[in-house]
């Protein structure tokens, strides 16, 4: 009979192996939450989509991004992302030239409109993206260039 101590040590080792192999569900890795750490560390759009298990995004007129042409203060840039389409699963806001591209992700239910406004920090002038991830698997985006007079990450 293996002792309780042995069993515990054993399962801990297996969990470590699974985690190393990327087999444990996201939920278990992020200490009981579903926070997608890999997506928030990704440097490119392709990596963000890969981390979220989504396909390559296509540009769409049905997605709207609201952002200023020139942001005087990169620490507070108002950005809105919305779409008139039905069947939206997630809305994402991304800043291309930030240290990590993904800024915010909103999980949409039937009870809310797929339209969110927030404020983000921008390190430098950059393209800002609104991405709508649809329940049928389509990934649609719109982008806009925002000029930043004063950076908001390191300042």
């Amino acid at each position: 009979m293996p002792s309780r101590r042995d069993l515990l040590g054993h399962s801990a080792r297996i969990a470590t192996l699974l985690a190393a192999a990327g087999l444990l569900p996201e939920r278990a890795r992020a200490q009981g939450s579903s926070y997608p750490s890999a997506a928030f560390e990704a440097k490119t759009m392709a990596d963000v989509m890969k981390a979220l298990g989504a396909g390559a995004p296509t540009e769409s007129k049905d997605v709207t991004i609201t952002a200023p042409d020139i942001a005087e203060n990169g620490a507070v840039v108002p950005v809105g992302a919305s779409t008139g389409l039905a069947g939206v699963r997630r809305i994402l806001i991304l800043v291309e030239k930030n240290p990590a591209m993904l800024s915010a992700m909103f999980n949409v239910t039937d009870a809310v409109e797929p339209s969110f406004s927030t404020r983000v920090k921008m390190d430098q002038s950059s393209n800002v993206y609104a991405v709508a991830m649809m329940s049928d698997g389509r990934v649609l985006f719109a982008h806009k260039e925002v000029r930043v007079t004063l950076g908001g990450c390191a300042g």
Partner: protein
Amino acid sequence: MSEPTRIRAQAGADKATVRMLMTHEMESGQRKDASGKVIPAWFIREVSVQLNGKPVMTAQWGPAVSKNPFLQFTIKGAKAGDKLTVSWVDNRGDRRSDEATIA
């Protein structure tokens, strides 16, 4: 201890517009202090909103969301008198939950 989230929710014809301001440092993890040491990131990771106890939206944020985060969105079918609960958890595990009534 964290400060309360300021929530304003206004009912329209068949929906309610919700605006909120959370109080949080949202430290980016990019800045350095006077001695050149990186100030560790400290930010709200997850936000969840409930209408009369039923979840209507959740959000996951990175450290690029601005200090004292602002969020605006619209809840369909919400009316004056409905109760709104806004909760957040940051990357240190601190959490806070605030309530407001739709006006």
